[in-house]
Every structure is written in C-alpha cells, then in structure tokens.
C-alpha cells in the first residue's frame, strides 16, 4: 500500500532518467545516507566500525568494480585480488617514494596502476571467452602475487616483504580513529558508487551489457568489442585498485601479498554473485552477507552459551556458509538484489496477491 508509484507521472525524460525515479526509493536512499554519515559515527562501537563496517564498505566498493566487469560486461574474472594488490602496492610506493603525495592522490594513483595492469590482462578477453577466460584471469592473480612476493623493488626492499603505512592524514585532517577511517572510506564508497551507477546506466553501460548478452549483435550495431571490453576492464580494475588501496591503508595498515590472494578474489566473486550480477546495490548486499555471516556464525554459539570448540565452530561456519550460498542461489539465482526487487514488486501489488 505504501510502496506505490501511482500518481507519480514523469513529464520529462530528464525526470524519468533520475537514478531513483520512484519517490519512495529516493526517500529510502536519503535515509540510508543520513544514517551512514550521521548516526553511525555517533553510535557505532569501535569494533563494529573496524571489524564490520569498514571491511563491509571496502568490499562493497571492490565488488562494484568487479560487478562492472562480470555483471555488466560478462567477463568472469577470478583474479580481482590481483588488482586490489596492484592498487595497494602502487599507492604505497607513491607514499614511500614521494611522501609529498597527498593520501587521496596516492589511493587514486593506486587505482590508475591497477587500471594499467587490468587492461593488459584484459587483452586476452578479446579472443578467449567464458570459463576459459575466467581461468586465465588466474594468471593475473598468481603472477601479481608472485611479483609482490619476489620483486623487492615493490616492497621497497623490506626484508620480510611486509609493508605498512605510516599515520594517515587527508586534507590536513587525521585519518586515525575508527570513526575517521570509517568516514574516509564511506566518502570514497559513496562517490564511486554514484559514478559507477552513472556509468552503467549510460551509453557505456549499455555497450558493456550488449557485449555481455550477445556480442555478435553488439558488433553489428557498431559497438566495438575491443573498446567495450577494455573499458570494462579499465573501469573495473580502477575501482578494484582503489578498493585495494583502501583495504591496505585503512583496514589492514600493514600487509603482505597474502592479503590479496586467491581467496580474496573468490570472496569478491561470491559477493558479486550472491549480491546479484549486474546490480550496484547488489554489491552492497553481497558484501554485507560476506562480512556479517561469518561474524554472526562465530558469535551465535557464544550468545547462547553453547561451548563450541573454535575449530568445530569454524568448520560448521564453513558448512553453513557453503550451505547458505547454495540456498540463496536456489531461492534466487540472480542474487539478493533480485530478491530485493521482487520484494518491492510484491510490495507494490500488496495487499492484492497479483
């Protein structure tokens, strides 16, 4: 009854092209932003900020990047951890070698380098497709892992291969406390989510989706696969690179290539698919699922005072997690985002059954 678009007529195309054409959606988003920017910093505990919200936001961002490639352009990649790593290490190298570079610029430069690497590894996509391509993206994963492990230049000849960032500040403000870190990440995520949304609903987004859905038809209407695929790789790796830099700088503070290993890539792919391929909000849903479920699973037995050994708990967690993934795929193969939109559709016709 409350979620209706009746009576909301659009008299201009501009109005119809807003990101959220339905009033209730606009309301909702506004509310979310208010909560995120004002309420949470006031209320959330440090643990909640550091261990849940910050990783959630950064993973969402990375997932948005990956979603552009996988969900919108249809090029499955299992190597996104590599691009996060490139973003992180590139940013760090600028920080170390040119300490004058402002923090935000370092992070963006991380993105730029990730873009370059992404485009290089995107080139095979012009010939190789589908699962074959997916597996070859692992070449990026393992190569990059290797490079940061074995080429001392990238870690500024640190003997252990581990690197860490000094105290952070941006625009003269410190980025130290959990709240500051959270807000810093939040701004990045909000801005990039908006830009990504703009891209996917614009001309370039349509090109990506066209390539994804039917590449022959796309080239017949004049879309160049090279351009579409490589831009998708570029934009996607840029965002993933930025997310990688944030992950390293804000979340970890100190890291080794292991932080961006294959598990990270798989995790991102999970987020994207559980959340919903080809959906920006889906990336957030997926990331929430990914971050919350394990925390929830480790805490639940404690809450009920069930004395579970950590290893059993962790194995059960694995099982439950795997089971949930399968469960959600069965309930809705198109991810949480689709579930969400079906929910909205139901709400729209509520209380009538159809």
């Amino acid at each position, binding site marked *: 009854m409350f979620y209706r678009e009746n009576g909301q007529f659009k008299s201009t195309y501009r109005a119809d092209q807003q990101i959220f054409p339905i009033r209730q959606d606009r309301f909702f988003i506004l509310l979310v932003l208010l909560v995120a920017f004002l309420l949470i910093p006031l209320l959330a505990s440090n643990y909640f900020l550091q261990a849940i919200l910050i990783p959630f936001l950064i993973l969402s961002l990375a997932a948005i990047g990956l979603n552009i490639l996988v969900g919108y352009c249809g090029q499955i990649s299992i190597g996104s951890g590599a691009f996060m790593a490139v973003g992180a290490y590139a940013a760090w190298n600028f920080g170390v070698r040119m300490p004058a570079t402002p923090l935000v610029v370092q992070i963006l430069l991380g993105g730029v380098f990730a873009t370059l690497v992404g485009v290089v590894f995107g080139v095979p996509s012009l010939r190789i497709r589908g699962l074959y391509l997916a597996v070859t993206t692992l070449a990026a994963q393992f190569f990059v892992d290797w490079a940061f492990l074995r080429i001392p230049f990238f870690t500024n000849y640190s003997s252990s291969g581990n690197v860490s960032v000094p105290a952070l500040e941006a625009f003269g403000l410190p980025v130290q406390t959990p709240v500051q870190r959270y807000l810093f990440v939040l701004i990045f995520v909000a801005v990039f989510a908006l830009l990504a949304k703009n891209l996917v609903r614009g001309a370039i987004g349509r090109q990506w989706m066209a390539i994804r859905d039917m590449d022959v038809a796309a080239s017949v209407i004049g879309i160049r696969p090279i351009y579409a695929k490589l831009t998708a790789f570029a934009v996607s790796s840029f965002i993933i690179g930025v997310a990688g830099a944030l992950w390293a700088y804000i979340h970890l503070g100190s890291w080794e290539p292991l932080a961006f290993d294959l598990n990270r890539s798989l995790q991102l792919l999970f987020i994207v698919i559980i959340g919903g391929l080809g959906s920006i909000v889906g990336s957030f849903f997926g990331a929430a699922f990914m971050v919350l479920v394990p925390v929830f699973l480790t805490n639940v037995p404690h809450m009920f005072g069930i004395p579970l050994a950590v290893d059993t708990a962790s194995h059960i967690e694995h099982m439950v997690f795997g089971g949930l993934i399968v469960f959600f795929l069965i309930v809705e193969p198109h991810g949480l985002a689709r579930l969400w939109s*079906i929910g909205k559709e*139901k709400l729209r016709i509520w209380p009538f059954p159809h």
Partner: protein
Amino acid sequence: MNASVEAAVPRILLNVNGIEVIYNHVILVLKGVSLCVPEGKIVALLGANGAGKTTTLRAVSNLLKAERGDVTKGNIDYRGERIERLTPAELVKRGVVQVMEGRHCFAHLTIEENLLTGAYTRKISRGELNASLDKVYQYFPRLKQRRSSQSGYTSGGEQQMTAIGRALMANPNMILLDEPSMGLAPQIVEEIFEIVRDLNQREGVSFLLAEQNTNIALRYADYGYILENGRVMMDGAAKALAENEDVKEFYLGVSSGERKSFRDNKFYRRRKRWLA
C-alpha cells in the same frame, strides 16, 4: 459404458482443468485455462504472441520448473492420472513429449546423435533403434544428408526437423508441438503438417499444437482453442472456428470473404482493436 459409446466419444487423453501459472512468484500468466485432448485427435492452441500457449504446453510437460514457473491452481490429468508431480522424464516414459519452441537442438551433437538421444527412455535393441532412425529419415530426408553435421551449424529449418525427429524417436502417444511452422519454408510447413497428420492417422499419435499460423493449423486440426491473455476465449471444432467471422477477421486475415493484400492495409489493426 458400452463399447459403441466408447467408440463414438473418444477417450479423453489429456485434461487440463483450470490451471493458473505464475512465473517468478509474481508474473501471473495463465488465469484459469481448461482444455482437453481426446485420444487420437489433433488439438490446436491458437492465440497472439504472449497469450500463454507455450506456457500451457510447459505446464503439461512439466518443463515449467526450469523456467521458475509454477502451476498454482487447477489440475492436469493424462489418461486419468494426475501428472503435475511427475518429472518430465516420467512423462516421456508415459508417452508425452514436447517439441520446444525455438528448436533447442543439442548444438554440439551431430544431427544423428541428436536423434539418438530422443530414444534415451526406450530400452530397445540396436535394430529397433535403427528402424526408428530410418523412419525419421524417411519423414525428413534432408536430415539424412546432414546426419553427421553438428546441429549447431545447421539452418533453422534443419534444426526444426531435428527437434521433431528427436521427439519421434521416443515413440510417443502424444506430442506437444510448439510452433512447428515457425521459420520454415512453405513447402516444409506443408510437409511437416502432413507428417503430423500421417502420424496421427497411421500411428494414432495425439497432438496438442501451439500455432501462430492459424490458417494451416485449423486445416489440420480437429479441434481448436483460442487463448487470449491467459484465458481461453473461444473453442470449437476446427471447421467451425474456421468459419467464425471473428476468427476470420483476426486470425485468418480474411475479411468480407477474400484475402487482402498485405500492401493494402492502411492502418495498424492492433491499434484499431484496442480502440474498439
């Protein structure tokens, strides 16, 4: 019941009773469709695009699940047995096979392999298998020529023939045929319908036939249902339907007795009807 009555009123083979179908839990497509197919008859299911013909066939053959559709109301009987809960494979064993719209050949298999898969449910000897194969090749000589090509590379018509031939290999009692004429050359369309009639008369196979080509469908069918928007609008013996003025006007393209040239239409009929 005595024998003479039984002969006069053929047994009902398939009985669809007031079914509703919903896709994806929200899209209601069939809103109470009832129809029946008597044994040994050809029944045509007509209607515009999106009327729900394919959906009806899928509901019968139980291929809806794979499309995330559900029969939420009504029931479907085949030879008096409820079949909504059966798997497609069990249905095929009972003799109900669907030929899907849009061909759906196994692209990487050769034409002959495609045909052979059709006999999967039959436990038969090599000899019988070859006999079935020969029968199909007899109906579709073109397939024999191209038997060793991968079906993914064959033309649309060849794929359609493959799909029908593949269904025949299961030795069915009842075929659910979805738009067999689509994309076929006129000669082949005739041929296919002749084959349908042949199978019907010689082997007693019953057909439920979804068609856009009303003209030809009514020519070969015994009985017809017209679906519109998920409901049966009209039904009747094929002959009677072909004579009906509305049907003539809307489905046969004949108004006031003669066929109009496609060029002479001056406006869009669809719009006209909506306005009316």
